[in-house]
């Protein structure tokens, strides 16, 4: 039994190393010729981006606002679908699930025209504003979480004469902090990583986000792997940090709710 266990660990260790090889290679290539690559990689960037700091700043703004919007809006909507009786609840929820099947590309063009008429082109707004309108996946996930909470507390609050918003805010929200944390982390990662939005809506270097900058950098410096890898290392570092810090929350979040999502796909659609 013990031998088997050690064997298992060795295999896992080997696979884990294999999985990290690309990142290690990136690091190694970025250091070919010394640390100078890191500052040289930033020299190329346009002046107004303050050596790339502006990209970083923009990405943070987008991610922070998206997290705020997603957590607020999707917890409200999910709570309503899980706990409140209102006309049309069932078919509205079905609509919500079906909307997950829509290819996002199909709505890009009209969305662009909408943002144009709102004067949002070449601004960060279209990158975070949609998060305030409760994405279907998050609602789906949080609804499962709210459903799994005991109803007794809700009912007690109702008997005590608490209004719906108070019950939501005082009773329901504190019980699912872990799940909200998971929503926050993956919204942050998704917002940080998004590429199509910046590609379509941004023009000025001073408005660009990090992933878009990566693509432009990659295109412009196609033949200098050392510089590109140095740039990539710097761009990827914050994500690695966030991931390592919050991976436990993510794991718990998935365990808590996503699982039920997945299993209920059959019965709900």
């Amino acid at each position, binding site marked *: 039994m013990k031998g088997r266990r050690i064997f298992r660990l060795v295999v*896992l260790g080997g696979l884990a*190393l294999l999985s990290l090889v*690309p990142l290690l290679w990136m690091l190694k290539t970025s250091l070919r010729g010394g640390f100078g690559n890191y500052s040289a990689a930033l020299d190329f960037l346009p002046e107004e981006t303050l050596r790339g700091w502006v990209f970083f700043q923009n990405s943070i703004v987008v991610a922070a606002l998206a997290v705020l919007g997603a957590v607020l809006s999707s917890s409200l909507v999910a709570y309503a679908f899980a706990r409140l009786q209102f006309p049309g609840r069932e078919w509205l929820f079905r609509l919500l699930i079906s909307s997950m099947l829509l290819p996002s590309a199909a*709505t890009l063009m009209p969305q662009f025209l909408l943002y144009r008429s709102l004067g949002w082109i070449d601004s960060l707004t279209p990158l975070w504003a949609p998060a305030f309108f409760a994405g279907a996946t998050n609602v789906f996930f949080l609804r499962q979480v709210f459903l799994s909470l005991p109803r007794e507390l809700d009912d007690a609050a109702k008997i005590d004469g608490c209004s*719906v918003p108070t019950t939501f805010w005082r009773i329901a929200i504190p019980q699912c902090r872990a799940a909200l944390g998971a929503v926050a982390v993956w919204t942050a990662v998704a917002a940080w990583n998004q590429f199509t939005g910046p590609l379509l809506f941004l023009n000025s270097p001073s408005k660009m986000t990090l992933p878009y900058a990566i*693509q432009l950098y990659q295109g412009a410096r196609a033949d200098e792997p050392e510089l590109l890898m140095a740039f990539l290392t710097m761009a990827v570092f914050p*994500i690695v940090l966030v991931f390592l810090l919050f991976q436990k929350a993510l794991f718990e979040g998935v365990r808590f709710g*996503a699982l039920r999502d997945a299993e209920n796909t059959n019965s709900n659609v």
Partner: protein
Amino acid sequence: MGKGRLLFAIACWTFLCFIARAAEKIIVWGPSLGPDSVGMRAVAGEFERRNPNYRLEFLSLGAGGSNPQKLMTAIVGGTPPDVIDQERFTLNDWAARGAFRPLDDLIAHDSLQSRGQFYDAAWQETVWKSRVYGIPTSMDDRALFWNRALFRRESRTLRAAGLDPTRAPRTWSELLAYSKALTVRDSSGRVTRPGFLPNVGNSWLYLYALENGATFLSPDGSRCELASSETVGALDFLQKLYVASGGYENALGLAASFGKDEADPFARGEVAMKIDGDWAVGGLARYAPDLDYGVAPPPLPDDRSGSSIVTWSGGWSLAIPRGARNVEGAWRWITFSTSPEAKRIEWAAQAEYERSRGRPFFPGLSARKDVDALALAEFAPTSPVAREAFARFIGYERYSQPRPITPAAQTLWDEQIRAVDRAASGASTPRRALELAQAAVQRELDAFARASKEPPLDLRAPTILGILGAALGVVLFAAQFPRRYARVRAAEARWGLVFILPWLIGFLGLTLGPMVVSLYLSFADWNALTAPHWAGGSNYAQLWGESRPIFLKSLENVAYVGSLGVPLGLFTSLSIALLLHGSGKGQKWFRPAFVLPSFLPSVAVAALWLWILAPDPARGLVNGWLAGTFHVSPPAWFASRVWSRPAIVSMGLWGSGGGILLWLAGLRRISPNLDEAAAIDGASPWQRLWSITLPQLSPLVFYSVVVGFIGALQQFDQNYVVTGGAGSGPGDTLLTPTYYLFNAGFGYFRIGYAGAIGWSLFLILLLVTAAQFAISKLWVRAEVDG
């Protein structure tokens, strides 16, 4: 109070400054300004010194004239630059769509623009419906480079083949003969040094077709004649050239493995001849100053030999997009920066800079004769070989022809490339390939003709109707409300509706609304700049008619990647999850290593993977390993039509670790009792896995398959990055439906056509998912507890 007022005053002042500064800005897109762009900076500095009220702002990152999607999006979005550095042959395309501003009024006011100084080939390209849309800047023509030293070394071989080693080939059959004689193969018969490869350097089908007397378009420009016998003959010849040097697939691999600069294949004698542009002279002067080579006119078809030189030229121009805020400043910059005076400032500064770095300076050809004369007199390369080559290139300029001048120029260009690829790879005959290309171009020409005939469409009525309809729905819904709900529940129901408002508004405004709008517009032709026209079902007819092959190809690509990548990803992540699940504390330590890659930006992963799978074994991680360990010649991955999709799959596999989280959560929920009971009954670990664990996980597997396929069908980011934004890849193997939509929508702003693609995609996705649900009844274990 005093403080507040002061703050207010400061705020106003800052605001005014901002406004004032904004008005002076001239935003220029295109020129890539790096630390080496000393000449350009000198000109900009001189301009700002002479015009202190203007400030130039160059956008050097990402939005150059070579990124049409970006420019079009900015123009339609109302945030265009003031000046755009635009490749000249596409000017008509943009002008016809109303995207650029005609310059005639500015030219009329200005005596600086001396029309006579421009080469005809360059000026013709700027004119659309007898109005001028750009001022030509650079010019580049094509000629044959031949490695004189290599010819000398191989003189015996050449003589044996009856060829003269002291001169370049002049006719097509000579070019073939020289290429065959100079091609070197290894012991296994694989070509290691081709004599001549059409895909090395810069010639394209256009060159061979022009030499063969092709015109591409009917004289009035209304019909595309890409499948004419002249062009078919040229494509036949191209195919022969590929065959002579080891076949097309081998040529693609070789071209992908060739380096640049110092490692340029011509400079290193890895190809004996190439057809390339004048800029190659500059590269050779810098990286191979001792190379003994010659430049000659491109060889002509045998029956046309002896007639005058035939070549084509391209180049760039400065244009002003529609909606530019600072037209006056833009025009000042255009006239100044193209003048011989500015060129002298630019070149003097740049030459000085290059000298200080110990590098030779190469000025490049201009679309103006007086600037060319200046270059030859004062800035020509010093080495005799390079000087001679430079002078010859300038001499060929007046014989050069522009690319076909038509609003469909970009499509024509893309299609001729695609036709060569189709024919050379054997996917179809040259004639068939060109007929397909011709049909695609013709369709676009017809759309232009049709758009000017159909009456414009008024979008106001449907918009108002839509808003009224939505309002009516809300009213009807609200009217029913009190009747169906008792008073006790009414408060909860009201809150319920308030709570779901964020989603409801988002769904109506960002999903359902856009879907309905795009359905409506899919029956119209509209580019968001000119008036929309009713188009009936023509967008769908095109998608499922002429464009079906390319659309199906994109679907095939995602189906390939999905059906290979989804099961592989499932298998890998599930196996790792099973290993992790049974490893106790090890799980905590190893889990992050597997999951981390799935959290990285897809763009960063693609940029990294592009280098990990770089074809050159000296630079790419995987190919270095393959070549070093197995001594095989490794695949060219993203540059190979066979390996490009497996490369995408491998990249996806690396990022599939996110699924591990789901599996681990699922495994934890399986009751250990069942497993233990089976173990006591003597079931082997494999039996338990197969009959207990996997059935319990089957709903999760199903979920992952559905989500995986939805994701695969929508691939975009990574394909965009690995193809450098071109989106198609070798033999269109990296084209995805989403990219196809994106290009139609944002590259050409064919909003109607993009809508037709979007709706078709939606229906396909619906069918695929419905099919998966139907099949799932057979293998997914029904949930007991829900």
